[in-house]
């Protein structure tokens, strides 16, 4: 086939590149590459080149046509599709066009050392003419094998679906993870204001509840108790007594409204109460107590703080201590 083609006169050349590409098709068939024709990367090119070289090893070929061979693949396909059906599938138009051009100068090259059909064969000529006459509608993508096209479309669709599913799954996972996560509004809404009020001033809606403790109340209580002991010298026994009394009074007056408190904390207080006198858990009795204590001057307040108890404790719970 090839030999014949080459042997044809320049007249044939006018018929177009198709012929040239036809020859390439033959080549390609021989190569029998099942690879996807779309991807021709450097590696593939090399491989093809090598194969072609091997194939044509008998001939002392120059490299140019060989290269063309490789790039001409698409053309071959096109040719085939021409023959097969008129429904054109297009892949990458640009590539095809390029290839066409390339293959045009491809046929200029006449490979030496090939036997020619001196007279030519009419049947072939007719056949080719017929083929070349068939008009190919210029689609965007250029002619592609229909089967292949379907495959590509299918693959693309599949990929799309896959990606979509993946994305959705990710989104869902993220949503599940973010469940309950709420971004606060930029402004203080009424409820937040109410909560801040509760924290600062205590709860006025339920004045009898534990909410008696709030920042303001605590500060005031601290102020009262600490102010009361200012003028007194705790080292004198008289003053110490007075301090104790004052503290208790101040404390209860401030937190007195929490006397509704529950029984459970009372239990805690009761359990700590007896520790007043002898408790080994009591800080001053520990070995390192004096060494680590930075507030030595307050040593005499120890028993008292027991009675007045801590802030978190209810008022009435400690009242039974004295």
């Amino acid at each position, binding site marked *: 086939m090839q030999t014949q083609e080459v042997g044809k006169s320049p007249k044939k050349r006018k018929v177009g590149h198709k012929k040239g590409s036809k020859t390439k098709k033959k080549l390609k068939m021989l190569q029998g590459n099942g690879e996807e024709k779309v991807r021709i990367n450097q590696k593939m090119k090399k491989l093809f080149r090598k194969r072609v070289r091997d194939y044509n090893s008998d001939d002392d070929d120059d490299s140019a046509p060989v290269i063309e061979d490789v790039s001409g693949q698409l053309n071959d396909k096109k040719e085939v599709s021409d023959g097969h059906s008129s429904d054109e599938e297009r892949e990458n138009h640009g590539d095809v066009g390029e290839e066409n051009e390339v293959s045009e100068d491809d046929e200029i090259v006449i490979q030496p050392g090939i036997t020619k059909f001196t007279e030519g064969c009419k049947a072939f000529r007719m056949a080719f003419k017929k083929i070349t006459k068939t008009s190919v509608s210029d689609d965007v993508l250029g002619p592609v094998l229909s089967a292949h096209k379907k495959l590509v479309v299918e693959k693309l669709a599949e990929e799309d679906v896959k990606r979509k599913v993946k994305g959705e799954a990710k989104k869902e996972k*993220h949503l*599940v*993870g*973010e*469940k*309950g*996560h*709420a971004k*606060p*509004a*930029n402004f203080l809404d009424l409820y937040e204001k109410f*909560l*801040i009020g*509760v*924290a*600062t*001033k*205590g*709860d006025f*809606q*339920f004045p*009898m*509840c*534990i*909410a008696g*403790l*709030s*920042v*303001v109340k*605590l*500060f*005031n209580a*601290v*102020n009262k*108790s*600490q*102010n009361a*002991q*200012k003028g007194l010298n705790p080292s004198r026994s008289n003053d110490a007594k007075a301090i104790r009394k004052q503290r208790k009074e101040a404390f209860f007056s401030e937190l007195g409204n929490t006397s509704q408190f*529950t029984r*459970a904390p009372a239990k*805690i207080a009761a359990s700590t109460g007896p*520790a007043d006198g002898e*408790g080994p*858990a*009591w*800080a*001053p009795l520990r070995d390192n107590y004096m060494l*680590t204590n*930075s*507030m030595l001057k*307050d040593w005499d*307040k120890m028993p*008292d*703080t*027991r009675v*007045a108890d*801590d*802030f*978190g404790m209810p008022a009435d719970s400690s009242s039974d201590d004295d």
Partner: protein
Amino acid sequence: MARFRNKKRKDFVKPVVKKQQPSVDHITGDKIPKSFVFSRGKMPGSLRQLQMDLRKLMLPYTALKLKEKKRNNLKDYLNVAGPMGVTHFLILSKTETAPYLRVARTPQGPTLTFKVHEYSLAVDIAQSQLRPRCPQDLFKNAPLIVLSGFGTGEQHLKLTTIMFQNIFPAIDINTVKLSSCQRIVLLNYNKETKLIDFRHYSIRLQPVGVSRRIRKFVQNHQVPDLRRLQDVSDFVTKAGYGSESEMDDEAATVSLPSDLGRVNRASTKSAVKLQEIGPRMTLQLIKIEEGLCSGGVIFSEYGNGDEKSKQDAREENNEEEEEEEMEET
């Protein structure tokens, strides 16, 4: 050889001076509660952040950089907790429906299980604010805790209050320094919805009756802009805009026993301002267990039938065990 190596290594080890946190308050002699905040199971990023926020909230008596591994189980934490004097666990977990927060006392329990209906991270809250505030020593002292609305007399609520009151060190009113009261944790129980609002605020004190300009001047030490004023006295006498509108009501003012910083003097009254620092949570008490994440169910939000059946199951188990024991003997 090995022995030499060991010796050498010993030489290299720099003696780490550990600043041991006191386990007992020096002044009151009370045991200082300490806590671990960790999570069980795989957590999404936002919840991990929430965990970090909770740790910061629990500062200073918590393990801020507690490393968890997948294979750590509750017993591991419990084993560490004993020697370190950790008294409370805050355990975050997550199901498909919602995240959960368990607050447990170690080593015996009880365990309160809260469903986290909604939460916002500290970052979110800072983002929502125009001027987020974070003074340096904000986390140096334990927060105060304010419990509000829990006084409905129900047993499980009482338990909740006790639990949360004991989670932070107690304050001794006679000796506490108000400058160490920087933060406050508010738990507000909503009777109707049965939800607990968990908020975390920073406390700020401002002198009352001083115009904003002067306050800023004292605070910032910057030369004020007097271009538009006719006289220097205008700076003092002219009231700045906006300052009066945000003037607070009587109830939010306190007088201090001692000076607090440059601005808040003992002689003047100060206003208490709270600014949220997050995290923010809306909790629902779901379950109270006797033990540490185990044991009998004292309270269950979702009906008593469930509880009963569980108890029955437990009894059955016990019986079975007893039988087994009998058989063994």
